[in-house]
């Protein structure tokens, strides 16, 4: 059964230096608030996992907390580069960043294998590309029935997965809806699961396109309204496309980035203060 606790407590208890963490979310429902809490608590030497490392991963990397990144597409969606990510890879600033990269389908299927209790999953893809040479977690195997060659990807099982959902009930059951990406598999493949939510409700009503996670599949549920900003929680908050564009200039320069992080993340106590600190500064 999930415990209901503060995100400060959840991060303190369940995120451990040197471990792997997946903060998943595919454009929608990105758990930025929990990510900021990891930064505030200065967790370090993390292996981060995510199909689409975006702004919050750029921040974690730029703050020097990340040792290794396992990913499939690292950009600012619709805008361009993640400058802190590039700086780490191109100039080892603020530290070297080890990479393991996949395709979306490949990393998605690594989570599927993890969620399914399997050591690997089969798929097409990888063959004919240079990606096979840069990871030991993809291979080519033969179909035992037809002899056809298919790709195999190794299961991934994060030490901790963090996702954001619209609702939890008081028992810690969770429902998310809209674009739910790879969140169910990220949660099911993990050893420990944190879910931050917009709202705690008395009773969860099933929604279209929803993922329901029973309380017993989660360790801690934390109420963090607005915790996806500048991403969004469908039917609760709006995506701030302007902030995504603005991040390009904030993150391009090391000093501007550090100052911004200092002002808006390190000097704020929580998501509420973080969001308040942006008033008048961004859209």
């Amino acid at each position, binding site marked *: 059964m999930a415990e209901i606790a503060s995100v400060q407590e959840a991060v303190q208890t369940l995120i451990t230096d040197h471990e792997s963490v997946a903060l998943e979310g*595919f*454009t*929608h429902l990105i758990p930025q608030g929990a990510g900021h809490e990891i930064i505030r608590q200065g967790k370090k030497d993390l292996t981060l996992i995510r*199909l*689409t490392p975006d702004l919050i991963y750029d921040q974690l990397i730029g703050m020097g907390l990340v040792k290794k990144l396992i*990913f*499939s*597409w*690292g*950009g600012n*969606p*619709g*805008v361009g*580069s*993640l400058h802190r*990510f*590039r700086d780490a*890879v*191109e100039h080892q600033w603020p530290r070297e960043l080890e990479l393991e*990269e*996949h*395709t*979306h*389908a490949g990393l*998605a*299927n690594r*989570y*599927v294998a993890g969620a399914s209790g399997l050591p690997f999953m089969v*798929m*097409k*893809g*990888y*063959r*004919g*590309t*240079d*990606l096979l040479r*840069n990871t030991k977690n993809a291979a080519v195997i033969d179909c035992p029935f037809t002899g*056809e*060659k298919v790709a195999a990807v190794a299961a991934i099982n994060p030490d901790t997965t963090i996702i954001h959902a619209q609702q939890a009930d008081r028992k810690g059951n969770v429902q998310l809806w*809209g*674009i*739910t*990406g*790879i969140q*169910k*598999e990220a949660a099911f493949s993990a050893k420990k699961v944190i879910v931050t939510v917009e709202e705690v409700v008395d009773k969860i009503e099933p929604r279209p*396109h929803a*993922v329901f996670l029973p309380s017993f599949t989660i360790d801690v549920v934390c109420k963090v309204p607005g915790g996806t900003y500048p991403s*969004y929680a*469908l039917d609760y908050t*709006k*995506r701030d*496309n302007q902030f*995504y564009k603005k991040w390009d200039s904030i993150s391009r320069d090391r000093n501007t980035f550090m100052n911004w992080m200092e002002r808006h993340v390190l000097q704020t106590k929580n998501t509420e203060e973080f969001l308040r600190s942006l008033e008048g500064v961004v859209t």
Partner: protein
Amino acid sequence: MMDYTPDEMMTIVAARQLTDGVSCFVGIGLPSAAANLARHLHAPESILIYESGTIGTKPVALPLSIGDEELAETSDTIVPLPEIFNYWLQGNRVDIGFLGGAQIDRFANLNSTVIGTYDNPNVRLPGAGGAPEIASMAKEVFIIMPLKKRAFVEKIDFITSAGFLEGSHSRTDLGFNGSGPSIVITDLGILRPDPESKELTLTELYPGVKEEQVQENIGWKLKIAKNVQVVEPPRDEELQKLRELKKA
């Protein structure tokens, strides 16, 4: 006739390639603009699929990301990521995939991973995303890339997405589901793979563009078709609708 930019021409030419009723796996940026333009013009029944899992989306404004609320709210359905990749793309339910990249070679292989060496890159690009699977599994692939000498290169630094590999039958040897890129739409003209060798060949030019302008922006000796055609310039309704979409 209205004035237009090479970028607008490129997007409109891309939109024209989509026949009505097809299912199209749409990336953000130019592909999304082209696919939605087509949907508003001659292809109202086309099914747009974004890799976020939104199927049959009908956005009014062009989305910034593949997961904007507009896409979720106007879709016929939304499915989780493993399903979009495994059941839809890999399961052969995508007619057309749109791709771009930082580099392309003469056999339409694409690089969106690194410029330079993998371990010590000059430019670290975003990486593969959904492109490799689109490239190998969509029934047909349309590539959109503005011509630039540093993008159209003799040898790409990393094969992120397979085109025709070393040409000829080297792609079909791998048994991919999809038949590969059928067209490369640039801002000056159109390249298509030679039916046999699979080498990209200039087949169409945009109005007023010379063959030499294309060659100047390509890093290998370009093959040129016998009868290079001139593409019809943007019609007013195409331009108006595109500008409307971009403004919304």
